[in-house]
């Protein structure tokens, strides 16, 4: 019987084992990005901006020109890079602490300027790298190491919905929230990433893809339970959907 290879690692991915925990969805998100880069044939003109957080080592896995930005500042780095190299495809990859806490000013203003960049926002409702502290997107009642009794909105406010907030701005072209928790969501996540990169390539403006993700280690759950928890608890708070789309 003749063997046909029907599945392989994307060309833009570096052939190494990732440092991510078992069950972490960063690997899925990375792979989707690499697949989209391959399919759009943009590897040599793509520039990645990695955040501070678990995915700081994004550049160890995706083989494109890369920056390692200071905590929260990836949209500023990406904005300048894209302005100087308008023919390149520039994306930042940021977690919820990086983007929605320390980097709130940078993401809002990059979006408001309509920078022709793509921002990929990994929302797993917790700080991963530092070991499970409360994030701006931590759910009410969700336990974290810095809210051991669960997030109390009287003390810490409510989870910030980035897509909804950015969608109030006039300039952004494409804003969507997807997930990679289960295959049915992952297929749509890839479509969203493709559209986001195409939005940039076609010069239509700022594109933003929020990916609801799991952090089994810091949530204290088995990977499969984490995917179910995401569906049951995160999706009602952070509904999937398209919030803005290019005309």
């Amino acid at each position, binding site marked *: 019987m003749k063997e046909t290879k029907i599945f392989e690692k994307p060309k833009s991915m570096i052939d190494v084992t990732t440092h991510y925990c078992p069950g972490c969805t960063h690997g899925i998100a990375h792979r989707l990005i690499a697949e989209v880069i391959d399919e759009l044939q943009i590897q040599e003109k793509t520039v990645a901006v990695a955040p501070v957080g678990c995915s700081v080592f994004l550049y160890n896995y995706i083989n494109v020109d890369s920056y390692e930005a200071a905590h929260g*500042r990836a949209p500023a780095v990406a904005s300048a890079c894209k302005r100087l190299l308008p023919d390149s495809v520039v994306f930042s990859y940021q977690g919820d602490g990086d983007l929605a806490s320390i980097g709130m000013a940078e993401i809002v203003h990059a979006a408001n300027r309509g920078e022709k960049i793509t921002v990929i926002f990994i929302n797993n409702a917790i700080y991963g790298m530092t070991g499970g502290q409360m994030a701006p997107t931590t759910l009410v009642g969700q336990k974290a190491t810095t809210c051991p009794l669960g997030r109390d909105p009287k003390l810490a406010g409510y989870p910030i919905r980035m897509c909804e907030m950015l969608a109030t701005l006039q300039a952004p072209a494409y804003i969507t929230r997807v997930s990679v928790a289960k295959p049915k969501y992952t297929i749509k996540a890839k479509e969203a990433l493709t559209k986001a990169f195409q939005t940039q390539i076609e010069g239509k403006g700022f594109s933003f893809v929020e990916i609801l993700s799991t952090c089994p280690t810091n949530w204290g759950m088995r990977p499969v339970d984490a995917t179910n928890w995401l569906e049951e608890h995160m999706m009602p708070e952070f509904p999937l959907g398209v919030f803005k789309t290019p005309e």
Partner: protein
Amino acid sequence: MGKRFLMKGNEALAEAAIHAGCKYFFGYPITPQNEIPEYMSKKLPEIGGVYLQAESEVAAVNMIFGAAGTGKRVMTSSSSPGISLMSEGISYIAGAELPCVLMNVMRGGPGLGGILPSQSDYFQATRGGGHGDYRLLVLAPSTVQEAVDLTMLAFDLAEKYRNPVMVLADGFMGQMMEAVEFKETRSEGLPDPAEWAVGYMKQRGSRALIKSLYLDPEELEAHNWKLQAKYAQMAQHEKRFEGYLMDDAEILIAAYGTVARIARTAINELRGEGVKVGLFRPITLFPFPYEPLENLPASVRQILTVEMSCGQMVEDVRLAVGKERPVSMYGRVGGMTPSVDEIKDQVRKALGR
């Protein structure tokens, strides 16, 4: 002599950067340097460049990080409190070895301080300001013409060493008007950004990685020693100073920037009275030109440092002079300026006359 223009210092600094081939500016408004971004916002779009007003100094310096990573000539300007906000980013730029030019038109501090000229950011400029063992190459002009010349040199030095270079001016220099000439100069043999910058993956056949994180302590130590070797090269090749009437001086005034100019007038008047006084003016504050102070003419009995600070550069002067000769310090701060008469009085007092 080429064509001369009567220009405000800040505008001359901006035009000098454009003459040096800088087409990209990112910044945030702050007094007393606003004429620099204003000038850039008008001129850069006309030459196909980019002017972008950031949402903060924090964003501005990270835009510089992103822009410098492309290997093109980029700059920002700010004033003291703004440089404090930028200091984290400057550390990242130094750690990632990116070339760029930073202008600090100093005002008084600490805190919100004031908006009048000061020299109280000497420590911040020469000792860091951000975290980690890094150095900026710091150039301190004394006239608007020198500010123009040093700004153009700053871009060459930034590329030569792949290091941020700071032009340390003060509010006087930013706001005064003087005649200036723009001399076209460009150092030869500067490194090709295609070897390290983003945007050349196809040409180079491999990707660029702009980073400062080394989790392996051996790697981070090696990276630090590599940076230190670079700073040692700067110290060997880039020290600049001006000596004025030093050879027979009995007392030497050490001063930089605007204060050195005031001191020069005081020196000329004192010389008219027969007082043997000279001037030592560092032009590079890092690397600091220690050697001339270590090998002073035998006639020099003491040194008087004059600064618009409570005593910052004086520490470098003392390091160089040691205990062989007394070093005193006269400072005015908060936007107050040492006058010619005050400096003359300080010299007379030091000499016991």
